[in-house]
């Protein structure tokens, strides 16, 4: 398709919508990583000795590890000594008791992001644990959740208030020495969210956290731990945006989910971090370890992700299906435009009997972007009657982008049923012309076709996220057909 040049330039030069920087004094530690830095973080967070030890053990192990190079990604060398590992908004010291005490600049930031906390209080069913840089500054809906016995708080608070839970579950899904970025996170994580749903409780609202990277040159190392006790149910939403920055910013989060018997966790992500400019300068490095442990029988974990941002995404939300009859699901839409790269997928490890997993992955690449689906379906010897269904579809826009699929299947039990389907298609001039001939503008037509392509995944998202996801997709792909 040809669009007139003026249009393309208009669209392409459109600034990243959320590219602004809030001017707040940050309490930032000097760049560099050593045992003192870790001790500093731990002290700042007033952590108990055992946690410091845990961090140091992770750090010492990390020192023996090397950056993974197996992903289909072109990553510039990262100088881990050039990164500052701690940054907290200053107002933290006077610990805001309510939103009124929160730095107005922070609130302004949320306003710009379209998540005014003031109004969110009244929004039906959404509690927000807002993470600004590395320290959580405001938490709403606590009362209602407390009534249900649900714990939803910043990770650092959980360390203080619920040490027994943290100690029991931290690192039980993603061990400190699991992988390079996981180990780094274990050593230097600053904050994140902690959720505990007690036995038999259905969490009365969707839980949501907005992550945001703000301070320049500061890596963001979130740690999230969600435990769903027996017969409980929770839906957790995570969404992110970041301000515009020239240098690459490293983000290495770890998310651990534990589902006990008959428990269900639904984890949804809309990720829209700054992807870099059209020449591939700047943008977030998003190296995330997300894993769920379906520990109990009949447990279920469902990952849904819409990844539109970041310069580089390295992310494989996985399920370990230990409990008999446990279910793992992975629904993913990943969009890469300009020079964005993504290597993403999932791992489904079947251990229990009658376990089943579903993988639906939709990849969209435009301009020079490269994208890979990488998935592992592993059926252990013990996994009688395990079932997996995998569907990977790629949509290409333009002729310089790429889509790659790396599905790995290991089946050690002959009773397993594993299905894999993959398709690659190009967004067709024919489809676009058809829509335009019916009076639909090119941009709207692209949106419509791409949203149609992603439909199976979007329907898994909670309503408000589905709407946001569709909008994001539109913004991300603006002018991508050229």
């Amino acid at each position: 398709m040809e669009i007139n040049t003026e249009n393309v330039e208009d669209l392409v030069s459109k600034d990243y919508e959320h590219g602004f920087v809030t001017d707040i004094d940050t309490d930032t530690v000097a760049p560099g990583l050593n045992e003192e830095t870790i001790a500093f973080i731990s002290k700042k967070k007033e952590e108990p000795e055992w946690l410091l030890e845990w961090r140091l053990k992770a750090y010492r192990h990390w020192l023996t590890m090397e950056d993974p190079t197996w992903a289909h990604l072109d990553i510039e060398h990262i100088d881990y000594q050039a990164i500052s590992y701690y940054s907290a908004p200053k107002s933290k010291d006077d610990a805001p008791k309510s939103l009124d005490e929160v730095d107005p600049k922070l609130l302004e930031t949320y306003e710009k992001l379209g998540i005014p906390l003031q109004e969110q209080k009244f929004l039906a069913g959404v509690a927000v644990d807002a993470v600004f840089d590395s320290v959580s500054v405001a938490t709403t809906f606590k009362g209602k959740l407390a009534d249900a016995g649900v714990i939803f708080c910043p990770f650092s608070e959980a360390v203080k208030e619920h040490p027994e839970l943290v100690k029991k579950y931290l690192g039980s899904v993603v061990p400190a020495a699991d992988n390079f970025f996981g180990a780094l996170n274990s050593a230097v994580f600053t904050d994140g969210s902690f959720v505990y749903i007690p036995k038999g409780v259905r969490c009365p609202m969707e839980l949501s956290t907005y992550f945001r990277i703000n301070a320049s040159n500061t890596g963001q190392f979130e740690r999230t731990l969600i435990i769903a006790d027996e017969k409980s149910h929770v839906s957790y939403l995570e969404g992110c945006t970041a301000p515009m920055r020239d240098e690459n910013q490293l983000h290495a989060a770890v998310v651990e989910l534990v589902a006990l018997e008959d428990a269900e966790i639904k984890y949804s992500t809309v990720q829209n971090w700054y992807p870099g400019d059209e020449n591939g300068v700047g943008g977030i490095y998003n190296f995330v370890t997300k894993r769920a442990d379906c520990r109990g029988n009949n447990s279920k974990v469902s990952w849904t992700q819409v990844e539109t941002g970041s310069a580089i995404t390295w992310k494989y939300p996985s399920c370990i299906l230990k409990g008999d009859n446990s279910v793992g699901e992975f629904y993913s839409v990943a969009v890469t435009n300009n020079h964005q790269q993504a290597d993403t997928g999932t791992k489904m490890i079947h251990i229990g009997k009658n376990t089943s997993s579903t993988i639906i992955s939709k990849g969209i690449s435009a301009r020079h972007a490269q994208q890979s689906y990488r998935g592992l379906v592993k059926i252990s010897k013990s996994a009688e009657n395990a079932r997996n269904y995998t569907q990977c579809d790629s949509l290409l826009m333009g002729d310089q982008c790429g889509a790659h699929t790396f599905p790995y299947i290991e089946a050690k039990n002959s009773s397993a049923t594993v299905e894999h389907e993959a398709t690659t298609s190009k967004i067709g001039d024919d489809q676009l012309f058809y829509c335009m001939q019916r009076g639909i503008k090119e941009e709207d037509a692209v949106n419509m076709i791409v949203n149609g392509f992603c439909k199976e995944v979007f329907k898994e998202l909670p309503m408000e996220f589905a709407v946001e996801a569709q909008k994001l997709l539109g913004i991300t792909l603006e002018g991508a057909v050229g």
Partner: protein
Amino acid sequence: MLNIQDLHAKIGNKEILKGLNLSVNAGEVHAIMGPNGSGKSTLANVLAGRNGYDVTKGTVEYEGKDLLELAPEERAWAGVFLAFQYPVEIPGVNNVYLLKAAVNAVRKYRGQTELDAVEFLGLIKEKMKIVKMKEDLLNRSVNEGFSGGEKKRNEIFQMSVLEPKLAILDETDSGLDIDALKIVSEGVNSLRNEERSIILVTHYQRLLDYIKPDHVHVLSNGKIIKSGGPDLALELEEKGYDWIKEEAA
């Protein structure tokens, strides 16, 4: 309504239309017939504004406007409709959703209020009868898994909903069995009125048994070489195209 003068168009370096002239008045039905490769589909696509066709000479005037200046969607807003020879499949995009977006895009352009879901459903319920459109096709993805006949029916259904001023039907009869041909033809006939012009692009005469054209034109090697009334089509059916080519040469 439509006035084409000395139209030349090429695809790549190959000239397909070589000085085509055609004038269509409001309310008229014109059949453009011709052998394969004569430029019939090129004409349809050039009128609809498809990319990849290079107009090198000539003018197309539509309702006093220079049609060639308009983007494809602007032509649609102005009332130009193309029933595709090969309607595309758009997976995941609901048939009704696309049509509603199309209707509202047109309404917006005309300064009318957009229809909400209820109003729109009311509108299409009526129109479905025209081509005996099956209800389940409405909620399927656009043309996905439709039979050849269902796809063509869907085109005419869309036409009936969009109510164009100038409808170009590109080989709408191809791939239809006799029953489907009848249904589609009845649909088209019911949409004939004094304001609406229809251009039927077809290879065979049989469509014209069901849709009676006011004028028949023979396109050969990028030009209209003979025009006449409905009888011309019958003559073509009988004698083939060669005699006209000879006559014209």
